[in-house]
C-alpha cells in the first residue's frame, strides 16, 4: 500500500513539477506533511537541509529521502524512479511533438504565465514551515534567536545571493552555541 502511495505521489509530482526543484519541494511538502503525514514539519525541514547540502538534483534527493524514511531501501528507489517516470515517457512524445518552433514558443509562454503562481506556491511552502516546531524559541520570552537566524539568512540569500550551503553551516554553528 505504501509503495502504491509513493508511486502515485511522485508520478504526480513528476507531471506537475514545473519551475524547478523548489516548486517540487512545495508539492512534496503538501503530500508528505499535510496529506499523508509521513513526516513532521521538523523532519521535513531537516530533510530539505540535508538535500540542499548534498550534490545532485534537490528533488531526487528529496524523493530518495522520503522513500527511504517511509518504506526503506525499496521505497527510496521506487520514489526516485516514479519521479523520473513521466520524464521518461515524455522524452519520446515531446521529441516528436514539441521540437518545432511554434509549439516550443507556446510552451515558453505558458511557462512564463505560470511563473507567478509557482512563486506563490513556493512562498506558501515557506510560510507553512513558520511554526513553533521550527522556531523553537519563538514567543517564549527568550532571545528569539531562531527569528534572527531566519531574517539574516533571508537578507543574505535574497540581497546578496549567498551560498545556501554556507548559510546552513553557519546556522548550524549558531544553533550549537545558542541552544
Amino acid at each position: 500500500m505504501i509503495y502504491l502511495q509513493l508511486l502515485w505521489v511522485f508520478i504526480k509530482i513528476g507531471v506537475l513539477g514545473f519551475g524547478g526543484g523548489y516548486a517540487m519541494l512545495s508539492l512534496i511538502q503538501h503530500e508528505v506533511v499535510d496529506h499523508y503525514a509521513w513526516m513532521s514539519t521538523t523532519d521535513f525541514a531537516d530533510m530539505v537541509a540535508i538535500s540542499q547540502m548534498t550534490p545532485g538534483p534537490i528533488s531526487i534527493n528529496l524523493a530518495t529521502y522520503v522513500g527511504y524514511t517511509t518504506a526503506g531501501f525499496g521505497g527510496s528507489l521506487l520514489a526516485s524512479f516514479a519521479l523520473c517516470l513521466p520524464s521518461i515517457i515524455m522524452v519520446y512524445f515531446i521529441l516528436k511533438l514539441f521540437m518545432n518552433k511554434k509549439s516550443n514558443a507556446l510552451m515558453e509562454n505558458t511557462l512564463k504565465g505560470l511563473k507567478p503562481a509557482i512563486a506563490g506556491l513556493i512562498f506558501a511552502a515557506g510560510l507553512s514551515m513558520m511554526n513553533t516546531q521550527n522556531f523553537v524559541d519563538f514567543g517564549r520570552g527568550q532571545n528569539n534567536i531562531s527569528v534572527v537566524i531566519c531574517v539574516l539568512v533571508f537578507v543574505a540569500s535574497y540581497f546578496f545571493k549567498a551560498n545556501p550551503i554556507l548559510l546552513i553551516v553557519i546556522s548550524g554553528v549558531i544553533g550549537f552555541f545558542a541552544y
Partner: protein
Amino acid sequence: MKKALQLFLTFFRIGAFTLGGGYAMLSLVEKAVVDQKKWIPTDEFWDMIAVVQSLPGVFAVNTALYVGHRVAGTKGAFAAMLGAIIPSIVIILLLATVFREYRDQPVVERIFKGIRPCVVALILAPSLRMIKSAKVTWKTAIIPIATVFLIWWCKISPAYVILAAIAGSLVYAIVIGRKTEDGGRRTEDVPSPQSSVPSQERKEAES
C-alpha cells in the same frame, strides 16, 4: 554501447560533484557533451535546453534523457539518466541512515534547531526573487497572493492550483501567439504575460 557507457560516466561525474541543482550543472554538461566529446553542435544543444527548460519534472533528469537520447537512442537516454540520479540516491541513502542513527543526540538536535529557521528563509527568498523576475505588477500580484491564500490558508492541494494556473496560462499563451506573427517568439516586446486569466482590459491595452 561504448557511447552509452561514456554518457553514464559523464552524467555520473556531474551528478556526483555538482552542488546547487540543475542549472549549476548546465555549463558542465555543455563542456562535456559539446566541447569535449563533440556529440552535439552548440546551437542544437541550446535549442534543446530551451525546450527541456519548459518541461515539467527534474531538470537534470530531463537534460540527461534528451542528451542521451540524441547521442545514443534509448540506451543512451537511460544510461545518462541513471548516471545523473545514482550519485544522489547513494549519497542520500548513506546520509539518511547516519542521520536516523544520530538525530536524537543533543548535539545534533542543537545544530538542527539553528538550521530549521535557516531552511525557511532559504525557501522564502527564491520565491520572492522569482516574483521579481516574473515582472509581477501591482495588478497581476493577485496571482501569487491568491496562490498563497489557497494553499497556505485554505489548504488546497498545490496540484489543483497548478492545473488551474496551467489552463489559464495556456489560454493566455495562445492569445499572445495569435497576436505575434512568428508564433509568439517576440515575447519581450509584449507586456509581460503573467496574468493567468487575460482580462478584457489587457487585450485592449495590447491592441
